């Protein structure tokens, strides 16, 4: 039962062309068809952006990938295996971590307690398991040091952190524990200019460490800055995908609004 998380693997398996692929994924809530035959792929080691208007189905798709929803039809293949997630825990075990829009941090707990929430390192003393606080604190320091520069002591409570620092903690948590794919739902929506820049740096560093990143964003300039691949959703459908290098902000806006047909 001892939960000894491993360091994020930098030398993953031989590069595959596709890390995640959604094939004809559909999901309805009652009469609302939230997703209609959505097909898209994610390459390993890349930042992929998912854009679209409010209600286009981005979050619903992400929730399918991260195990919160189960698609009615279609398949999701991750790292070469067909997935059948029944809970976010299943997705996490497979190596898919999600940074939720509300960050899912507990304000009254410390940074290290949040990093290890529900994955605490435990020392067995007979029948009882006692927290190995020292080990978690030093591991937390490592996790923070490799990724985020602006996070204060891991012993401080999250309540005292700024919005950007909280985002950094949530991203560190997602990046640790040998995740292969980190999903971020509008990571900079509530941040100022400087903090946004810091989080974007963090996203690049995540990619350089070997994580694939799927980012939902409303900010087209940011999408162009960060991503290598863009997928556009409209009214529950995936209406197009472009290599970021080969497209422009205008073209993406056109796809989002429907001015440009797919």
């Amino acid at each position: 039962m001892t939960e000894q998380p491993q360091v994020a693997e930098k030398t993953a398996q031989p590069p595959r062309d596709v890390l995640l692929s959604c094939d004809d994924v559909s999901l309805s809530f009652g009469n609302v068809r939230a997703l209609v035959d959505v097909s898209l792929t994610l390459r390993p080691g890349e930042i992929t952006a998912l854009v679209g208007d409010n209600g286009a189905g981005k979050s619903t798709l992400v929730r399918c990938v991260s195990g919160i929803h189960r698609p009615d039809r279609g398949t999701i293949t991750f790292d070469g295996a067909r997935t059948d997630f029944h809970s976010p825990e299943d997705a996490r075990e497979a190596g898919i971590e999600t940074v939720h829009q509300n960050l899912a941090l507990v304000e009254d707990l410390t940074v290290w307690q949040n990093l290890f929430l529900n994955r605490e390192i435990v020392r067995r003393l007979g029948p009882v398991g006692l927290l190995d606080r020292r080990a978690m604190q030093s591991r937390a320091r490592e996790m923070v040091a490799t990724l985020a520069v602006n996070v204060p002591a891991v012993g401080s409570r999250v309540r005292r952190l700024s919005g950007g620092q909280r985002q950094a903690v949530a991203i560190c948590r997602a990046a640790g524990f040998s995740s292969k794919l980190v999903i971020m739902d509008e990571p900079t929506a509530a941040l100022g200019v400087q903090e946004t820049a810091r989080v974007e740096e963090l996203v690049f560093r995540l990619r350089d460490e070997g994580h694939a990143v799927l980012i939902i964003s409303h900010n087209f300039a940011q999408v162009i800055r960060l991503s290598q691949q863009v997928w556009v959703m409209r009214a529950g459908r995936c209406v197009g995908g472009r290599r970021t290098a080969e497209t422009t902000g205008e073209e993406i806006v056109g796809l989002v609004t429907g001015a440009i047909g797919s």
Partner: protein
Amino acid sequence: MTNTTTLRASGGPNWSHRLKDAGFWAEWAALVGLLVLVIVFQALNPTFLSPGNIASMLVAAAILVILAVGQTFVIATAGIDLSIASVMTLGAVVFGQMYQAGLGLGVASLMAVVSAGAAGAVNGVIVARGKITDFIVTLGMLSAASGLALILSDGKPVTVIDPLLLRLSTTGIGIFGWSFVIAIVVAVVAHVVLFHTRFGTHLLATGGSPESATAMGISTARIKIAVYLISGLLAGLGAILLVGRIGAAEPAANTAFLLNSVAAVVLGGVSLFGGRGTIVGPFFGALLLIALVNGLTLLGVSQFYQPLAVGIVVVLAALLMRFQK
């Protein structure tokens, strides 16, 4: 006491860091208040700190400490156990009936704890699975448990004179009566559970942010059930000490124990909104309340003034903590 403080110090970050934390002061406010009371009462009446009076205060504090620990677990999850005192009454009555039926001290004690634990578990299941507010569920249990106690006892007290139970409530190590020693053990174990186990962390996460805890895969329903179960079991332990102290199992209301258990937790700086709490705080909070009542009695203040004084102290403490933030 030393045990709890050293554990706390070794586990936390360095002291200069802690001194800046408002929570640190809230945690120790009860101890500071206790020291002030002790100095004032000792100045007004020198018998206050006589070994005999200290010993009797500690014995009087034992049950309240145990209940405050149970209450702390519940309040740390942003709940409240209003039934804690009547569940203790139920446990005491079950004890009395079992003892009267000649089943012996062991079985009677076990059944007291089991019945009180069952009442706590019912609270927990209804709160967690039925998704009904803690306040309403435990208010219902307050009435139900008292009623059950009246039915089981037919409204009559049962005299319990057991040599072992008598020793428990009258002897001890030095000035520490056995019942107080038990309370210390409960507090130390509770501290370890809260700060040195996964369960404790998940409990604080559940109280602090249920959505985040759920998102990280923690079953907040199971945590809720567990804290009410713990609260019930501790009420059962309190019941045994209560019977030993009174020498009888009475279907009395014990309302003061309910109010004082919540008061001790508030004095101890535990947030009623959950997510933040200590065991040391409520421990000293309970001692403070007992010292207050004892000191007023020594000074010859009428009993009628004591609840008033307790109320004023609790509200003042809550106000002080509010301003600290």
